[in-house]
């Protein structure tokens, strides 16, 4: 491994460390029982099998949106619509699960495919708008996230609402639900789909022709043009694939044992989490499970902390924020980086001279 890459990893861990320290400091500031809170945050997930299972459950949606964002960002498109795609995917899967009475094996498959398709079309919208009118895909994607939210809420309230259950749909049929993998937990078949998606995402991005074109177009547009790559096509496909993955994630989440009805009436924030995952995974879908594990662990720890002490769950978002800030700050630790690289260059020189 080159000094450059080693340094990147070092910086990532250093950023995580600082972020955790900041969070601890905040906990000390707000809590009357800071030590208990920190202990709950750090060791809580280990305390019981159920807690560990919660970590795994929380990982699943993060892997999906993380992988989706990796693919969209690899084409250098700042499309933040994975948030809305996830939401829409959840609604589509739930709505079709309720409306189509399909047999057990088939129902989840059909619902998930439809969820993925909805997600794909959804995230392609900002890209199409950009290509046709030049409108910033970033701003457009921020707007359509809210359109997704209200559209989904509209469908919920007017088409699939169970009047007996408040703001929730009818119970999703058992036939459409994803299987539980381990009894006594809510770890479900979605985990396997998520891992497969992460692997396929990696293969797509790093081993397929399309992924290769996409990364070239993402890293230097003019070089792509000179190489004869159809940039418009590549951008569209990247947004379609990324959105499909995010939509699929929403579908998986709603059909998981965690939910029995569609109840989402506000944006869940998985799209923003995905950006943290993508940053931690360095745009490689294969590393998203690891990054998701980290975030899920933190989340689970935080919710245990929130249950058992006086600190709220939201401390995690601060940790995430600080991690992003530091992990992508090019100049952060740049002196150390320079030292490491210079040292390596010197060593190489000496080796050359000795030979």
């Amino acid at each position, binding site marked *: 491994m*080159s000094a*450059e890459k080693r340094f990147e990893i070092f910086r990532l861990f250093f950023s995580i460390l600082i972020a955790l320290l900041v969070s601890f400091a905040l906990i000390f500031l707000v809590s009357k029982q800071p030590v208990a809170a920190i202990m709950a945050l750090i060791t809580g997930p280990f305390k019981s099998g159920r807690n560990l299972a919660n970590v795994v459950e929380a990982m699943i949606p993060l892997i999906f949106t993380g992988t989706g964002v990796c693919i969209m960002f690899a084409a250098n498109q700042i499309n933040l619509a994975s948030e809305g795609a996830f939401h829409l995917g959840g609604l589509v899967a739930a709505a079709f699960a309720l409306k189509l009475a399909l047999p057990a094996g088939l129902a989840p498959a059909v619902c998930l495919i439809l969820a993925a398709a909805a997600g794909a079309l959804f995230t392609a919208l900002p890209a199409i708008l950009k290509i046709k009118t030049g409108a910033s895909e970033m701003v457009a994607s921020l707007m359509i996230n809210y359109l997704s939210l209200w559209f989904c809420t509209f469908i919920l309230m007017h088409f699939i609402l169970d009047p007996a259950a408040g703001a929730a749909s009818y119970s999703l049929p058992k036939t459409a639900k994803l299987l539980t993998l381990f009894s006594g937990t809510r770890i479900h078949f979605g985990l396997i789909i998520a891992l497969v998606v992460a692997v396929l995402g990696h*293969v797509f991005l790093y*081993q*397929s*022709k*399309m992924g*290769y074109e996409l*990364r*070239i177009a993402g*890293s*230097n547009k*003019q*070089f*792509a*043009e*000179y*190489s*004869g*790559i*159809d940039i418009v096509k590549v951008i569209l496909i990247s947004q379609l694939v990324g959105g499909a993955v995010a939509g699929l994630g929403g579908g998986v989440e709603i059909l998981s044992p965690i939910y029995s009805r569609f109840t989402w009436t506000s944006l869940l924030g998985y799209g923003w989490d995905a950006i943290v995952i993508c940053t931690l995974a360095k745009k490689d879908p294969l590393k998203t499970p690891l990054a998701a594990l980290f975030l899920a662990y933190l989340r689970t720890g935080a919710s245990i902390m929130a249950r058992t002490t006086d600190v709220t769950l939201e401390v995690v978002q601060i940790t995430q924020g600080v991690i992003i800030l530091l992990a992508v700050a090019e100049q952060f630790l740049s002196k150390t980086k320079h030292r490491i690289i210079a040292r390596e260059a010197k060593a190489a020189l000496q080796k050359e001279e000795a030979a």
Partner: protein
Amino acid sequence: MSDQYVLQMQNIMKIYGNGVVANEDVSLSLKKGEIHSLLGENGAGKSTLMKVLFGIETPDSGKILLNGQETTIKSPMDAISKGIGMVHQHFMLVPSLTVAENIILGVEPKKGLFIDMKQAVAEARRIAEQYNFDIDVTAKVEEIPVGVKQKVEILKALYRGADILILDEPTAVLTPQETDELFVQLEKLRADGHTIIFISHKLDEIKRICNRATIMRNGRSMGTYEVSEISTDDMSKLMVGREVVLTFDKKPPVLKEVMLRVRDLTVHNAQGVLKVDRLSFDLKGGEILGIAGVEGNGQSELINTLTAINKSYGGEIFIKGADIRQDSVKGVRERKLGHIPEDRMTSGCAGNLSIRENMFSNQYTDPAYSGKFLLKTKVLARRAAELVKEYLVKCKNPEQNVGMLSGGNIQKVIVAREFSISPDIIIANQPTRGIDVGAAEFIRRRLLEYRDAGCAVILVSADLNEVFSLSDRLAVMYKGKFSGLFTDVGSVTEEQLGQYMLGLRHDEELGGAIYER
């Protein structure tokens, strides 16, 4: 005696970090109230000298005397405060602001908290009138023509009190009428006591307007001359020349069939300016056609059209007999065309992808390297390692990012990529610009090897050594046409070449550009 000079640059030496000697013992003296031409080919060291004068670069040795007083110029702001103004080739204007706002930017007249816009406009008008510039100072810069933009740049410098004006190829972007207008104004400035450094390649213009000329070649000064006392032929002789004669054991060319046929090719650039003018030529397998010429005479447009990056052109292009009008870039490349682009960083590679990933952008769809969907990653990795070895790319391994390599090694990666498709046609645009001697030598030998193997090569280069020593036929491009074409490259002298490059000579009948059947 020195008091007759407003500015003297004495024995300026500038060596860049990568060891390139850009200025070697260069001296330049300006008399008050003269238009002084700084003349030289691309890469002769004019820009470096002007950067030193304008405080952008610090010289390694040498002195600058302003009105006889030794001085150091630390920054462009420092230069401006000492009365030196520069009009860059690429205008430094803010498009959405008005002319007056551009002129006063950074030195705004104030009335309380606000800009005194009335005074700003009045001052801009006053200075425009003082120098007979007919400009609407309230117009937005984005809406005025190029010639007027240039006037705004000059006014900007004058407003800041410039006594010495550096104009970097001011006529390159102007129409003949605009050029005439500019010259009238420059004469007026001279009459007012301003001193002007006029950088240009155009000898007729220098004859028309300049008093004296300092000629540079290969980082050195070839002397300063009274323009009235030196002929354009002599100027071109001093300007164009080779320092070291490269020698290659070049076999005589073995010509094959015509690979590339170009007929009446006409190309306009995005602004609608004619850049390639009814150009026709043939290129056979086994030969290298060198194209020399001062930059901006249509070479880039020609190459971009031949490689289908530019799709709007008049005339016809055939590769191995097939019309390429309907071809995409990919389509042309699939006809086995290799293209070394002019600027390796902007279009030749993706700096943050690995060497391996940069090696196959033109051939990853080849069945040897990919199936229907997937790349054959193992084959690619093996092939990349082979190419790295074959092309002597200095790197830790093929997984290293291309951006981390030196210029020469990046160029080798590009060359490896373009040559590894076993091309029938190679279009090499400045293949050795700005890279170390070893890498340049390596790339030149490779070009010859491919030519010997029957490949047709177009070589566009600003390096005359290179075109002279590699070309089998040598064309000079001037204003979108071949002004000269030599089938016997060995017999061409540098003086001749210079005359064609600078438009002093022009052959109407170009025998040899097209092969008669």
